[in-house]
């Protein structure tokens, strides 16, 4: 399939100055400053195919926002090339942005003082959307996002969840083939998050909309993206399927037991001494955790032995969460 986005050796440097300390330092700053060139995005490469949903993740300051801003034509790259939808975003900005939709979770696209539908009307003109297209497409969007009752309210009176749904609808007015979402679910409650995720999946299927998503909430990524790009200190450290990442980095499974009676940890250890198991006891809640390799056979054996010996109050099988995986990766600094 065709690539909608191609990024080659993309680099963005910022000139940052460090303030000298104290009053004396401040006076020296008045005349000359200590400048330092910091690469926020450091020669990255990747491409995205049509219809893909890609999660773009990294810690604060890893360069996510900077990349998104270059991809959307807001910032000019220091070097490297970007081709998105067949255009150079910054050079042909006005023509280019006609083909993308952007949602910044922390910044409103809508006009604060006027009713939501007035904002929509204005954006419809801005993007030169015909009445027929608008009614056809937006009718559906408005219904799915359930924002019909909000349309005549001014934006300042909306709750964050309501506003975010309207923002999303606003970004889709011209039905762009490519959608950038920068932290779209920040600060939202679970129900709104679910609604937004379902909606994104739907438009992705219906229109083959390509979606690039940055978020701190990895459950968004798990729910939506098959592919993730992991960024650390301005460099791409992983680009591939989310599943591979999970397989490669998961550290087996955890079996958590709680017993009806008082049990000694050494007794449990003795019980499973022939198997490769590591036991841990959480004293306060009396939760016994066995860490084992991710193999069905082994897990069954451990459970069978324990259950045969003691009465069980509760048992849980946990996989290493994506969050933990990512945390591990960042702690080690490489994939």
């Amino acid at each position, binding site marked *: 399939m065709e690539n909608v986005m191609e990024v080659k050796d993309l680099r963005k440097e910022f000139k940052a100055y460090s303030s000298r300390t104290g009053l004396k330092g401040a006076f020296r700053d008045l005349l000359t400053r200590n400048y330092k060139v910091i690469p926020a995005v450091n020669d990255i490469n990747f491409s995205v195919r049509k219809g893909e949903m890609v999660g773009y993740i990294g810690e604060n300051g890893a360069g996510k926002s900077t990349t998104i801003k270059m991809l959307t034509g807001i910032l*000019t790259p220091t070097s490297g090339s970007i081709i998105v939808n067949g255009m150079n975003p910054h050079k042909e900005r006005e023509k280019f*942005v006609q083909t993308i939709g952007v949602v910044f979770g922390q910044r409103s696209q809508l006009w604060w003082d006027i009713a939501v539908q007035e904002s929509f009307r204005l954006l419809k003109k801005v993007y030169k959307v015909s009445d027929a297209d608008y009614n056809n497409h937006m009718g559906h969007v408005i219904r799915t996002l359930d924002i019909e009752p909000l349309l005549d309210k001014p934006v300042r009176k909306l709750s964050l969840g309501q506003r975010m749904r309207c923002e999303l609808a606003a970004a889709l007015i011209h039905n762009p083939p490519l959608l950038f979402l920068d932290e779209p679910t920040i600060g939202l409650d679970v129900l709104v998050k679910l609604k937004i995720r379902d909606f994104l999946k739907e438009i992705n299927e219906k229109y083959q909309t390509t979606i690039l998503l940055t978020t701190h909430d990895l459950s968004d990524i798990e729910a939506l993206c098959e592919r993730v790009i992991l960024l650390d200190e301005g460099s791409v450290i992983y680009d591939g399927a989310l599943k591979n990442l999970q397989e490669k980095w998961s550290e087996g499974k955890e079996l958590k037991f709680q017993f009806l009676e008082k049990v000694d940890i050494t007794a449990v250890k003795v019980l499973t001494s022939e198997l490769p198991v590591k036991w841990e006891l959480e004293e306060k809640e009396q939760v016994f955790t066995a860490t084992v390799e991710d193999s069905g056979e082994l897990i069954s054996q451990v459970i069978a032995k324990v259950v045969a010996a003691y009465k069980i109050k509760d048992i849980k099988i946990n996989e290493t969460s994506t969050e933990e995986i990512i945390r591990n990766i960042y702690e080690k600094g490489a994939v």
Partner: protein
Amino acid sequence: MFYISMFFQYISQYIKTRLQYRADIFVEFFSDLLSQAINLVFILVVFGHTDLLGGWSRDEIIFIYGFFLVPFAVFSAFFNIWDFNDRYIVKGELDRILTRPIHSLFQIILERIELEALLGAITGLAVMFYAGSRLGLEMHWYDPFLFIVFVIGGALVYGGVFVMIACISFWADARMSLMPMMYNISNYGRYPVNIYNKLIRFMLTWVLPFAFVGVYPAAFFLGKREWFWYSFLTPVIGVVFFVLSVRLWNQGVTKYRGAGN
């Protein structure tokens, strides 16, 4: 065509918003009126101690001031971007602007439009007619047309210079407020340039050409032949400065650093 239709779209949105805060419009108008009155008081007090200022009489100076108010009102209505640095650069609102398919400067001008400032033009016209009738000026059929051309030229001079000042924010990394600059630069075109020394006169004509907002075009209506040449340059200077400012803006946008979030 698209840009003209966008212009009216934004205006209609603007009116809807503004109608919610009607009281503000009057407060604004009266505070403008007050500051205009104070400038007139200054002129009147000064002429209590002299008859001529660099060869210009009191009523001529008042006429120039009246004329100046008209392009200034147009400028204030359409170039209300004195908080550009704070709002668009520091708070990063420019991000949003840049994701829309309209020229960024045009969008900002439209978003910040403040039509009520046009009321200042009425004061200006009243002052001009008052001074004009005391001077016994005659009106010719072509005067209204030239007046409009000169007003647009003057407003473009202001707009151009102001956009250029706003562009500093793209390069400078520190916060700065344009308001005091704006407040102060609005003062210089009001007095006849021949009272200044050569260097300042040169500055006010070719570098920061504020003389084209007040004294030069007004000199035409006052029938001061020695200044006609400059009067007719007004629209040219206006267009040149405005075009230059847009060029500079386009350069500046590529230097935009985004708000750190």
